């Protein structure tokens, strides 16, 4: 517990970390927590207000959407999509980014020119438009969305890894390893990687929040997860036609996105402070 306390200084960071953990647990235990079937429609409960309002029913605490589906249950299930895609995309991107960044930064030469060229080209496209284009080509669905996001997301860790590798390459311990007959593969995996891991972890934790926003954006545009699966982005989109009469349909999933992304950002900021010695006093 002491170590965790050191890692996350400040009450706000602890609160944020607790919130992230709560979201993850919520996603994991969705079938146990959700009061209703997230896909079950009930036209008699169409646009039913939240429990505390005049026509509300506490059995449906956050009200119902245009098809009479329970918003709370859909938010609970929607957390699965957001967190799954956020984590999987960042994991894939980090794995690719580490491999590409190490190769480019350590081997230099044509490998570096190819990787750096790809990075520059991909950075030239606005992320969302790039993903929208890919989704339009591949068609909607969770797997396609993971691919569409990972296609460009790897650029972020790759740049970080390449830069750190360029610096590590010139260190004495890499030179010493070369002098002892280590191969390039060995030096990249065993000498360089352990030394550059902490910035990579920091970047990954920040990027999860970004990818969650992108997932919500794609789903909002109707290119993401397809109905009846609940996704926060598509829930916001579903409610936008009723925003004046039934504000709760869009507002609650929107708040869920805000809360999760904010918590991840605050918590990852703390991780970064803990891992970067420059921030230590």
């Amino acid at each position, binding site marked *: 517990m002491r170590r965790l306390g050191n890692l996350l200084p400040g009450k706000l960071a602890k609160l944020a970390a607790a919130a992230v953990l709560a979201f993850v647990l919520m996603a994991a235990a969705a079938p146990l927590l959700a009061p209703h079937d997230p896909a079950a429609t009930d036209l008699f409960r169409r646009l039913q207000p939240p429990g505390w309002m005049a026509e509300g029913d506490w059995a449906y605490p956050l009200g119902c959407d245009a098809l009479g589906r329970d918003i709370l249950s859909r938010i609970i299930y929607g957390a699965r999509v957001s967190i799954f895609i956020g984590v999987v995309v960042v994991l894939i991107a980090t794995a690719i980014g580490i491999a590409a960044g190490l190769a480019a930064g350590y081997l230099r030469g044509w490998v570096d020119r190819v990787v750096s060229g790809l990075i520059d080209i991909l950075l030239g496209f606005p992320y969302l438009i790039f993903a929208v284009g890919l989704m339009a080509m591949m068609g909607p669905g969770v797997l396609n969305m993971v691919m569409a996001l990972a296609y460009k997301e790897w650029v972020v860790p790759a740049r970080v890894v390449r830069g750190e590798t360029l610096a590590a390459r010139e260190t*004495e311990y890499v030179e010493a390893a070369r002098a002892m*007959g280590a191969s390039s593969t060995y030096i990249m995996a065993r*000498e360089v990687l352990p030394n550059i891991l902490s910035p990579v972890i920091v970047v990954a934790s920040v990027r999860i929040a970004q990818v969650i926003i992108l997932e919500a954006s794609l789903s909002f545009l109707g290119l993401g997860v397809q109905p009846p699966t609940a996704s926060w982005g598509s829930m916001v989109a579903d409610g936008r036609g009723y925003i004046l009469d039934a504000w709760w349909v869009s507002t609650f999933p929107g708040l869920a996105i805000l809360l999760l992304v904010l918590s991840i950002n605050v918590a990852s900021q703390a991780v970064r402070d803990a891992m970067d010695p420059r921030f230590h006093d």
Partner: protein
Amino acid sequence: MTDHPMPEPLLSITDLRVAFATRGGLVRAVDGVSLEVRAGECLGIVGESGSGKSVTFASVMGLIRPPGRIEGGSIRFGGRDLVGLDPAAYRRLRGREIAMTLQDASTSLNPALTVGTQITEVLLAHAEDLPAGHGPRRRAARQRAIDMMRLVGIPAAEGRLDDYPHQFSGGMRQRMMIAIALSCRPRLLIADEPTTALDVTIQAQVLELIAGIRATLGMSVVLITHDLGVVAEYCDRVAVLYAGQIVESGPTAQVIAAPRHPYTAGLLRSVPVLSDLDRPIQPIPGQVPDLVDLPEGCRFLPRCALAHAACHAAVPMRGLGAGRAARCVLAEAAP
């Protein structure tokens, strides 16, 4: 360089030239260096920063990377030519037959790995006589790592195997580097300024350690240093480098007693002597020439008190007998 017939030396460098392409022009870091290291001998390499001493031996290790390039000459080790050797063969040679410890031990160990990992990985990569099978192999490598750490005098070696480099003192890190370098019993150890970052007392311990292991394992040692005292104490022969060239070489005792090159003499005069504190320290005036734009004649000329007309033409290395040689027009005249 020598008058006596000898078996082929372990390492022989002939007319080595290494240059680095920079924005300011071609830097000729090593320009026609020839030297030999015989089996079991300790050769001292002396010179100022930038004289080419580290670059010469980085070339031997095959560690020169662009923008650096070996422009010419040959490096023979154990009867094989190393210039242009394919990378895989070179990798097998490094660590196994020639090992090098780099200048700064405090940064030569990987901060993210335990010292035990760093030494056992070298053993696993190079040692041929470890038992087969993953488990026994690892255990044997670990045991040998402990033995090596004991050999270099690291107390409680077993308990320190899982420590990280930052948990070691400077002297202990230097010992660890030597343990790693020697773990595969190389035939040649190149120690690049092994004691520069250490206290004098620790310096002596580390040098004694290298001398002792050299005697035990019968290996050759090249000691790169700028400390003439160290050379006098530990090296059989010495080569003095200046601006990418050897300016004087020979048996250590004779070179120090009667230097034949004004630069060597200047170096000796700039060393303080404890037994004669009244003797003034005389620094060599001037600076090392720009390696991009070298004069055609003697490279020491602008700083030399004995300069003369013949010094403006190229000065070759002159054999002086008894294994000595100097790159000075006056060398022949000396008794």
